C-alpha cells in the first residue's frame, strides 16, 4: 500500500491586516420610518441605529467584497498571487450559482486562490476566520482572505416593521497568514437549528416559483425572541471563548460583537462586566446591522481611529440566523 503525503503543520496564524468598504449613500431613520409607521426616535431607542449605508443601483455584493478585499491586501503588503483561499461570508449574494468568491478572487488578482462562500449569516465572519486559522495551521493554506459582505437592500422589505430599519449594506475583510505564535485563539462555534425559524425568509425560492406573491422573498425576524436568546447566550459563549484562550476580560483591548442591535451590545457588555479600558465596537450607530460584514467593519473603523493598538487582544463574537454562533480572541494586527 502506498502512503499518502501530508503537508507540514504550522504553529499559528494571525490577522495581518483589515479593510472595509461602505457604500456612499447614507439612509437616515427618517428615510425608512415613513413606510413602517415609525420615527427616528423610536428606531434610535429600539436599536441604537442613526443611519445605515445603501448600495448604489448596480453596485453588487462582489463589487463591495472586492473593494474591501483590495484594501486588506494592500495594507498587508502580501502579493495577491500568494493567497491560497478566498472565503466570502455572505447571505445576500443574489446568485444561486456561481458563488461570489471565485469572481472576487479573480478580480483581486488572487489567481492561485481557491474560493468558496460561507453561509453562516451574522456569524459568517467568525466562522470564516476560524476556518482560515485551521487551514493555515494545518498547512492547507498559507494566506487566506476572509471577507464578510452583505447587500441587504435586495432582501429586506421596506414595509416590514421588524427589519426594515435594522439592516444595511457593506463589506469588511481580513487577510490572515502564518504566525510563529497563536494570533487567532481557539474558535468556539455552534448551531441550534431547532430555532431556524427565528430569522428566516418569508418564502423559499421554490415556493416563490410555484406561488409568486406580490413581494420578493425577504428576511423576517422574531425580534423579541432573538433578543432574549442573544442576551442570555452570548455572554456565556463569550466567557467560554475567553476561557478556551486562557485570558480574562481584563486582558482585552477590545470587544467587537456582531452589530445586531445596540441594546444587545449594551446588555452583553453589562453581563460580561467589561472593565472601562476595553474598547467596545458600536459601529451599528452609523452602519446598521450588516450581518457577516459587521464585525470586520467595526474592527476596521476602530483601527482607523487609532483606538486599537497593534498586539492587543480583541474578543470577536458573531451570532445570528440558523441559529449559529462563532467566537474567538484575536491578536490585533
Amino acid at each position, binding site marked *: 500500500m502506498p502512503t499518502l503525503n501530508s503537508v507540514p503543520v504550522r504553529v499559528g496564524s494571525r490577522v495581518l491586516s483589515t479593510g472595509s468598504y461602505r457604500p456612499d449613500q447614507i439612509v437616515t431613520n427618517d428615510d425608512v420610518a415613513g413606510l413602517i409607521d415609525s420615527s427616528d426616535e423610536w428606531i434610535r431607542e*429600539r436599536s441604537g441605529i442613526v443611519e445605515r449605508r445603501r448600495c448604489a443601483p448596480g453596485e453588487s455584493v462582489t463589487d463591495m467584497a472586492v473593494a474591501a478585499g483590495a484594501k486588506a491586501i494592500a495594507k498587508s503588503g502580501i502579493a495577491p498571487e500568494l493567497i491560497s483561499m478566498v472565503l466570502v461570508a455572505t447571505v445576500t449574494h443574489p446568485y444561486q450559482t456561481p458563488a461570489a468568491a471565485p469572481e472576487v478572487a479573480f478580480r483581486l488578482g488572487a489567481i492561485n486562490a481557491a474560493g468558496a462562500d460561507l453561509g453562516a449569516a451574522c456569524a459568517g465572519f467568525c466562522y470564516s476566520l476560524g476556518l482560515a486559522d485551521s487551514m493555515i495551521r494545518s498547512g492547507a493554506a498559507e494566506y487566506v482572505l476572509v471577507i464578510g459582505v452583505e447587500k441587504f437592500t435586495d432582501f429586506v422589505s421596506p414595509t416590514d416593521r421588524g427589519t426594515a430599519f435594522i439592516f444595511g449594506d457593506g463589506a469588511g475583510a481580513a487577510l490572515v497568514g502564518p504566525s510563529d505564535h497563536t494570533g487567532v485563539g481557539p474558535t468556539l462555534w455552534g448551531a441550534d437549528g431547532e430555532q431556524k425559524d427565528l430569522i428566516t425568509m418569508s418564502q423559499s425560492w421554490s415556493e416563490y416559483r410555484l406561488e409568486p406573491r406580490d413581494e420578493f422573498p425577504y428576511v423576517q425576524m422574531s*425580534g*423579541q*425572541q432573538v*433578543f*432574549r436568546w442573544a*442576551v442570555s447566550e452570548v455572554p456565556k459563549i463569550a466567557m467560554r471563548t475567553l476561557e478556551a484562550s486562557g485570558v480574562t476580560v481584563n486582558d482585552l483591548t477590545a470587544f467587537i460583537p456582531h452589530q445586531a*442591535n445596540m*441594546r444587545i451590545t449594551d446588555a452583553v457588555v453589562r453581563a460580561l462586566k467589561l472593565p472601562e479600558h476595553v474598547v467596545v465596537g458600536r459601529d451599528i450607530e452609523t452602519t446598521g446591522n450588516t450581518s457577516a460584514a459587521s464585525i470586520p467593519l467595526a474592527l476596521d473603523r476602530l483601527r482607523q481611529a487609532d483606538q486599537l493598538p497593534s498586539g492587543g487582544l480583541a474578543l470577536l463574537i458573531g451570532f445570528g440566523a440558523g441559529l449559529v454562533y462563532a467566537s474567538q480572541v484575536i491578536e490585533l494586527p
Partner: protein
Amino acid sequence: MSQTLEGLAAIVNEVAGTPIEDITAEKSFVDDLDIDSLSMVEVVMACEDKFGVSIPDGEVKNLRTVGDAVAYIDAQS
C-alpha cells in the same frame, strides 16, 4: 407591598429607571412604565433569575400590568 411586587419593582427600576414608588400593581408596563418590547424581555429574564420561575415567550404578551406579572410569578413559585 408583597415580596414579589417589591422584587419586580426593583427589576423594573434597574431596567427602565422608573422610580420604585411609581411601580404599582395596576400599572401597564408599556403604557405607564415606558417598558418597550425589548426592555420587557430583560424584565422577564431578570424575573426568571430572581424568582426561579419560567416565563415562556408565548406568556409574555399576557403580562400587561405589573399585577399580571406578580400573579403569574406567585402562581408558579
